[in-house]
């Protein structure tokens, strides 16, 4: 049945050249690889040394094998190897290719098309006329040259329905009296009229049946039951167990289509259906648009969802809930009963409910809303809500919509309403008139026992006639409607309970609510409610299960939509009538898939996946690759492979690249563990080295004198490095350092806001005062322009920096200038009597700016020797000591935050406690 892997040659005699290979073996073996000439003075010491191994002057055997393989590949390639050469003996009678071409063929359509293409090619070689016939889209039977069909083949696509009996009978008729051979690409599903057609074809000539071996898979429509989405899949071949995955696809909150859930389904052995239930939150469920069997491209494997999966949220608000205990008189009782099975009910006050954005708000006998509520409800209506109002004694008694139309009522109302057929009135209770054709209720049967004894009356208005969608037999409006924005307001002129009419007691009530799109359950699609409706296709499926726009297709009568099998006039897809959506899928809930049974005298083949394939290119490419390998191998054998240092260097560089990244990550990790002082890289090597040495020196001093034990200092590249790990950044200014990028500024500002400190050092206090007088000062101004820096002040004598660890009044570095600037004190900070300093600001100053070249004063080499002279003699050493103390103070300030400034209050607090 299936064609095995076979192999043939276009020009087999070229293979004779393979006989040359042994000769080549001998020749190649005798020729050793060329030696390398090397100049080497030590050659005198080599004289007289003999090679131990005399065999090595021959080419190594593996190199020989490599070359032989290359040559063999060339020879075989030139002989024109062909995989699976077709050897079907064919007659010369015309050939009819029949394809079912329904949705069941779509899953393996590519294989079918390939096979048809191979058949056409073969027929073209043999000069047989061909007719290509699709049962799903029958055309007149015409035998044409195969090449003609080949050019049309690309347009031959499966249809999203099954071939019907008529098409088969039509073909059987056409076949009568003709002679041709037939190949029938069947989809493997049992179908009426199939055997009759087979008999007709057999009478015309030889028939071969081709079927895919794997059977057909399809997905039944999802059913919402017990709060879960029940999914079931069917298959035509049930012998073996099989696992499939069904994907739930819908829109994500961003509006893009994506897979919302995946559900595994398992077919047990000998079972032709698989079921599983999917639990989805209501929000996700509402966004579902379809289910698909993963990896199966056919219309049968797609199941569109409609309103049946959605439960509408209906808010019920009654104007009168004072009669506790009188259940049956509650204005909401009948609504609750009608809606409970198919909608999510919300009850509460309007204010609480509106934010939940329900689909429907039912106001039962509510006359007046506050103006705020009214505006909110109008907003909600604009967004597409449905406001359903019922009349009642309150509405009848109120003045709402008397002289002018209330925005929340569809019509003006007459005062008081009317009652008919009561003890004090003439006439009989009125029954309902048949629904007009433009009414949403059109087609619903009107039961004669539903009568209305009281109602509110609409004022005659020019717009009234358009707004009536149901009326009583005397023509007075029973239900009126108007649209507001995208939403609508519907007023039922009777109560929602049975006080004024029998309507809530009848089945019509539920059906009307359904037509108003209040209900949304599977009962929507009941034949009796579909009568008289026309459904407009919204989106339809093609044979592969892809979604197409269906707006241009004609509408479908409601009865057909439910019952008729899919066909050219009823494509599977999503249909709309008014606000209601119904999905029509290939499978209905109770349909099954049955595989076709063919008579025993017919040969049934599998799809011939592998068709003849020219392998010349592959062999020649293999020969080229082998020869390239031979080049490398020859070089290796003669010891010249590693001469190419550039290549080696490149490879090394490539290998080292990730290593440096890893090292960097490790370094950052270490910085996160310890307190690490950091300085900003300026790009000036000398300044950077000094800054680093300065940080090292300060770290040493901190380590010895305080409980701060910093790790080795870090050099920070503002563009690349994460700053969050460093409590303080030392930023030496050079006139030509690059200005940080926008991202770097963003990170710096984050750093400053989250408690970091930057110590700017213009390093020019020996020649310039603070300001824009020097190039470094000007550069600092430019650099700091992008930073979020608060107003600055010269460091006041009572600043907390002067006493976080040491008591300091000077802040020298290598130079001794008093110009050090910090964040200004808030205007209301006052010097308190007896306090060493003001409560300047609660936090830490985010910047300290100066020019004393502190890093140079702090700088130490690895052995702890100072790198730069400071001042002269003993006073210079004193100045260096003060510089270290300033450094210690500033790090303490940064690490302790406002703790130090709070501590000064301790004596005062203790004093107070003591008293």
């Amino acid at each position, binding site marked *: 049945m299936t064609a095995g892997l076979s192999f043939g040659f276009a020009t087999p005699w070229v293979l004779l050249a393979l006989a040359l290979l042994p000769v080549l073996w001998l020749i190649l073996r005798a020729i050793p690889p060329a030696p390398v000439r090397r*100049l*080497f003075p*030590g050659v*005198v010491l080599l004289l007289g040394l003999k090679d131990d*191994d*005399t065999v090595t002057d021959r080419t190594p055997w593996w190199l020989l094998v490599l070359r032989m393989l290359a040559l063999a590949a060339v020879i075989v390639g030139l002989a024109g190897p062909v995989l699976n050469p077709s050897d079907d003996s064919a007659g010369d009678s015309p050939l009819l290719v029949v394809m079912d071409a329904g949705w069941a063929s779509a899953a393996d359509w590519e294989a079918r098309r390939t096979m048809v293409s191979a058949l056409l090619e073969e027929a073209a070689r043999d000069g047989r006329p061909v007719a290509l016939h699709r049962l799903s889209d029958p055309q007149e039977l015409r035998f044409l040259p195969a090449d003609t069909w080949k050019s049309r083949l690309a347009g031959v696509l499966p249809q999203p329905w099954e071939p019907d009996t008529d098409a088969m009978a039509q073909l059987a008729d056409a076949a009568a009296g003709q002679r041709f051979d037939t190949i029938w690409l069947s989809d493997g599903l049992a179908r009426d009229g199939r055997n009759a057609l087979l008999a007709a074809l057999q009478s015309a000539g030889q028939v071969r049946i081709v079927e895919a071996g794997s059977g057909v898979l399809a997905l039944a429509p999802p059913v919402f039951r017990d709060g879960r989405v029940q999914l079931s899949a069917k298959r035509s071949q049930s012998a073996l167990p099989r696992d499939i995955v069904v994907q739930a696809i819908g829109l994500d909150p961003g509006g893009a289509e994506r897979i919302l859930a995946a559900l595994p389904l398992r077919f047990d052995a000998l079972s032709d259906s698989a079921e599983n239930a999917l639990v989805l939150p209501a929000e996700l469920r509402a966004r579902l648009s379809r289910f698909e069997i993963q990896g199966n491209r056919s219309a049968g494997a797609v199941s569109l969802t409609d309103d049946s999966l959605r439960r509408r949220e209906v808010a019920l608000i009654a104007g009168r809930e004072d009669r506790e205990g009188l259940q049956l008189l509650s204005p909401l009782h009948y609504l609750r009963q009608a809606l409970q099975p198919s909608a999510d009910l919300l009850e509460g006050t309007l204010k609480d409910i509106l934010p939940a954005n329900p689909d429907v708000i039912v106001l039962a006998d509510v006359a007046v809303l506050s103006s705020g509520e009214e505006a909110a409800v109008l907003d909600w209506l604009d967004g597409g809500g449905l406001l359903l109002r019922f009349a009642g004694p309150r509405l009848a008694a109120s003045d709402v919509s008397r002289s002018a139309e209330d925005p929340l009522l569809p019509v003006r109302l007459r005062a008081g309403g009317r009652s008919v057929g009561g003890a004090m009135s003439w006439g009989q209770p009125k029954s309902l008139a048949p629904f007009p054709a433009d009414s949403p209720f059109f087609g619903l049967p009107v039961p004669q026992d539903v009568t209305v004894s009281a109602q509110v009356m609409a004022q005659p208005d020019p717009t009234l006639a358009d707004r009536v969608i149901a009326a009583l037999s005397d023509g007075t409006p029973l239900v009126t409607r108007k649209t507001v924005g995208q939403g609508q307001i519907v007023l039922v002129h009777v109560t929602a309970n049975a006080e004024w009419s029998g309507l809530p007691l009848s089945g019509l009530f539920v059906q009307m609510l359904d037509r108003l799109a209040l209900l949304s359950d599977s009962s929507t699609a009941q034949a009796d409610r579909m009568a008289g409706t026309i459904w407009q296709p919204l989106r339809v499926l093609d044979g592969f299960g892809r979604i197409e726009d269906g707006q241009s297709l004609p509408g479908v009568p409601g009865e057909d939509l439910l019952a008729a099998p899919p066909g050219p006039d009823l494509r599977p897809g999503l249909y709309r009538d008014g606000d209601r959506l119904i999905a029509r899928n290939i499978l209905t809930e109770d349909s099954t898939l049955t595989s076709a049974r063919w008579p025993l005298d017919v040969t049934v083949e599998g799809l011939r996946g592998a068709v003849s394939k020219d392998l010349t290119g592959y062999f020649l490419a293999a020969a080229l690759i082998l020869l390239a390998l031979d080049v490398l191998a020859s070089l290796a054998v003669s010891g010249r492979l590693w001469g190419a240092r550039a290549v080696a260097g490149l490879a090394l560089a490539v290998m080292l690249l990730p290593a440096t990244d890893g090292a960097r990550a490790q370094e950052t990790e270490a910085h996160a563990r310890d307190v690490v002082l950091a300085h900003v890289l300026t790009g000036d090597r000398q300044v950077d080295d000094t800054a680093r040495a300065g940080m090292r020196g300060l770290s040493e001093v901190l380590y010895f004198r305080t409980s701060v034990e910093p790790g080795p200092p870090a050099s920070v590249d503002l563009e690349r490095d994460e700053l969050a790990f460093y409590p303080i950044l030392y930023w030496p200014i050079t006139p030509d350092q690059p200005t940080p990028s926008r991202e770097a500024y963003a990170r710096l500002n984050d750093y400053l806001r989250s408690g970091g400190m930057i110590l700017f050092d213009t390093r020019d206090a020996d020649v310039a005062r603070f300001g824009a007088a020097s190039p470094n000062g000007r550069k600092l101004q430019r650099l700091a322009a992008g930073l979020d820096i608060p107003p600055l002040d010269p460091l006041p004598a009572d600043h907390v920096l002067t006493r976080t660890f040491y008591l300091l009044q000077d802040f020298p570095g290598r130079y001794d200038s008093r110009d050090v600037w910090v964040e200004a004190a808030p205007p209301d900070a006052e010097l308190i009597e007896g306090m060493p300093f003001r409560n300047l600001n609660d936090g830490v100053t985010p910047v300290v700016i100066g020019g004393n070249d502190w890093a140079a004063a702090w700088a130490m080499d690895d052995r702890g020797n100072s790198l730069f002279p400071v001042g002269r003699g003993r006073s210079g050493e004193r100045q260096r000591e003060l510089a270290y103390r300033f450094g210690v103070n500033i790090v303490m300030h940064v690490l302790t935050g406002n703790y130090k400034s709070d501590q000064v209050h301790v004596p005062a607090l203790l004093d107070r406690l003591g008293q």
Partner: protein
Amino acid sequence: MITYTQLRSGAESEAASLPPLLAQAEHLAGTVLLGDHGRRRAGLGDDFWQYRPVQPGDTLRMIDWRRSAKTGAQFVRQREWQVAQSVMLWVDQSPAMSFASARDLPTKADRARLLALAVAILLIRGGERVGLTGTQLPPRRGEGQILRLTEMFLQDEAGDYGTPEARAMLPHARALFVSDFMGDFDAFEAALTKAADRGVRGVCLQVLDPAEESFPFKGRAIFESMGQSVIHETKKADDLRDRYLDRLAERKDRLRTLCRVTGWHHGLHHTGDPAQGALLWLHRALEQRT
């Protein structure tokens, strides 16, 4: 007949190559001269050097009476050693020396010349007379000799491997042979014994390339000497390594033995190592009086 322009351009190119070698050698020598003041020791000469207490063995004539009378102890007056030694250099200039295994390594000849010239500078600064073996450049003192030596060192020799020149050796002079000692060993042996016979002591510095020590070759190869006079072909060079290294060790060992027998010093220097260490060693070795 050489034309003026040829002479001029030749001279220019020679002159162009002169300063680098000389400058390098001066630079190298400068590192040694610091803190090590050459000949300053007691010996025969005119200048006063020091007084020292009389030791047993000193003759009475040697006592400096004026000095002894001042103090009561007996002193001998020493004069600074002013007898200059003659040091004869032989630097192998054969093509075998102009080999470098890697691009960033100097050739053996470059290193040998540099070391020899640096030693010559040191010696001449120390007051010795320095010249070449053979008759071309007899030992002389003075800065001018350095220039002449430089000039001589820039001449390449023909032939593949160098043989030492042991003629016209001054008796009891000192000598420095710098070579890779890859050439005919009998010639070395003859030269060294001949020199030793005349009472010449000295130093053999063997300069080798790292590749000659490690033999990092593989596969099929034809090894040629620099002058292409000696050729050896092998099918598998890595097989030869052990035997080559054995032979090299044997060659070094023979040289060392020969040096020990003749009372010479033997040193080994690789072009991959810095020159300074070798220069220090050379200087010390030449200082030592055997």
